[in-house]
């Protein structure tokens, strides 16, 4: 016997959570874009999506975030730190890949210097994940040692029932337990069978790939030029990636006051590493694509023991020129030894 949540009780559930002081965010479509928005009703949710176009990373590491407000005076500058609110938030209907993305980035943002902007948001957010029972051509979690029912990064795991009436509910963390305690009467015990997870074919041999990347000789391989030839150097892959975390710090304001902000940035951009002298260590698109792949599957892995990729496949799904991690890693694993 496990606990289940019926679709029909979802609205009650939302009401109970709101009553406990949570706001609930779930995939929904607004203005031709699917993303996590705050929802009031179950009917607002778009839970049948394979994946929303935008990731939940956005809600922990916003695309632009005020850090410090400053006021310029004659001989002094007044500053005021802008502290992100510690909102009690529930992310409902997160896909396992997106949930994993948060867990993948945690060590980076906590590496010696703790980035409070990330962790204040992380601390009070509950990730309620729904295991995937369907996938599309781009899904590749299984290729990066995750799965359509992976629990990584989740506080509560919902597994769809075979009969389609609801989900099996499993708390994975204290935060998850605490959340379920707010809805004891809404959950029920049942022995309804869970639906099998989506079948996501393995697209490349990650061990082979990481071994090749770790080989110093691979760095200078002609492979990088060929694979990235059509890359146009935009940042849609990085900005839609659940794990990409690079940013810029910029001051914006007028003569009298302004705000120092933390903005998304991308290793795809030529300006990313450009020195003021004009020297640019990564001045071609192929070197930038190499950095992206190396960082995700070699450097990051070396540092934090995890690939900086959760297999969501957005990079390929949204690429204007049909590139992406899958193709590159597939090609690497097919390279002759």
């Amino acid at each position: 016997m496990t606990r289940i949540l019926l679709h029909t009780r979802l609205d009650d559930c939302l009401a109970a959570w709101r009553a406990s002081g949570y706001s609930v965010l779930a995939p929904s479509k607004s203005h031709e874009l699917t993303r996590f928005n705050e929802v009031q009703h179950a009917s607002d949710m778009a839970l049948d999506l394979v994946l929303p176009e935008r990731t939940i990373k956005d809600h922990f590491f916003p695309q632009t975030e005020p850090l410090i407000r400053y006021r310029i005076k004659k001989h002094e500058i007044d500053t005021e730190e802008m502290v992100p609110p510690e909102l009690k938030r529930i992310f409902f209907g997160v896909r396992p890949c997106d949930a994993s993305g948060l867990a993948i980035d945690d060590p980076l943002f906590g590496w010696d210097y703790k980035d409070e902007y990330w962790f204040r948001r992380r601390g009070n957010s509950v990730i309620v994940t729904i295991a995937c029972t369907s996938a599309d051509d781009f899904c590749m979690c299984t290729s990066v040692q995750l799965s359509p029912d992976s629990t990584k990064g989740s506080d509560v795991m919902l597994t769809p029932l075979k009969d389609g009436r609801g989900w099996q509910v499993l708390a994975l963390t204290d935060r998850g337990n605490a959340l379920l305690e707010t809805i004891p009467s809404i959950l029920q015990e049942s022995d309804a069978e869970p639906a099998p997870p989506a079948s996501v074919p393995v697209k490349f041999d990650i061990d082979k790939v990481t071994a090749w990347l770790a080989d110093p000789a691979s760095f200078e391989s002609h492979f990088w030029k060929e694979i990235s030839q059509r890359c146009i150097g935009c940042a849609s892959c990085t900005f839609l990636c659940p794990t990409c975390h690079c940013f810029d710090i910029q001051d914006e304001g007028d003569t009298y006051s302004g705000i120092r902000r933390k903005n998304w940035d991308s290793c795809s951009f030529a300006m990313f590493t450009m020195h003021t002298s004009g020297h640019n260590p990564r001045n071609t698109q192929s070197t930038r694509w190499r950095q992206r792949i190396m960082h995700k599957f070699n450097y990051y892995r070396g540092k934090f023991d995890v690939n900086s990729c959760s297999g969501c496949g957005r990079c390929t799904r949204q690429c204007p020129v049909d590139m992406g991690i899958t193709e590159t890693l597939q090609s690497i694993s097919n390279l002759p030894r």
Partner: protein
Amino acid sequence: MGIQEQYRNEAAELLSSGAVKLVIGYGEGSTSDRRRPVFIRSADETARLVLDANCIANLSGYLVPEGLLSDGKSVAVFLKPDGIRSVNILAAEAQVNPDQVVILGFDIDGGQASPLPGRKATDFAPLIESQKSTGLSTELQQEADQLELMSATDRFEYWNQQFSKCIKCYACRQVCPMCYCRRCIVDVNQPQWVNTSSHTLGNFEWNIVRAFHLAGRCVACGGCDRACPVNIPLRLINHRMSKEALDAFDHFAGESADQKPVLATFRQDDPETFIL
């Protein structure tokens, strides 16, 4: 012989005869309906070329990267009429030498790709002329009309919602053959004209500036619109600019390789109904 076969043969011949050093075309993509740009350098690779109704991307932007044409050798590229117009603009703006561009022209109509005769940009002048007389896309116009009918307040709100989605990934810019600047205006930080942050104000500024820079240069290939990962209807704003250039200045982007930029020229009798 189908068009794909015909153009594969032609590409092979161009490469094996040494007439071109490279053929930029379309290949199979990661799903059955996707096509991706491919770069063919020898005749025996031409079997990778695909040409069908899914080949909609404007490949002319790949002609621009520095160094590609600097050796004086020619490059062949698969182009629809919009792409041919892009080549004309790139030539007019001294970014490519049109003599080095062999055009494998085709058009898509009724779900079919069909060949267009001609190999040099100038060969397509009558085609482009007839496109000009046909006018801009009526579908786009209808869509734009929906917005024009709104009150300014509603229209602002519409774009406010659209632009608030923008994440400044610059896919629109990077995919655009016209965005060849060595340094984009957003990367100018002395002074920082465009707020680089992707808040709605910065996004408004960015999208307005880009549309302005495309005025009289956009060929409506739709590349930016398709590339936008957050589905901002960039086609509409660019269409509005094309319409203004055509209506007010009789300027149809990419008419010829010696067309002058619409915003660097003038006529003394340009319309000025709005000036007090």
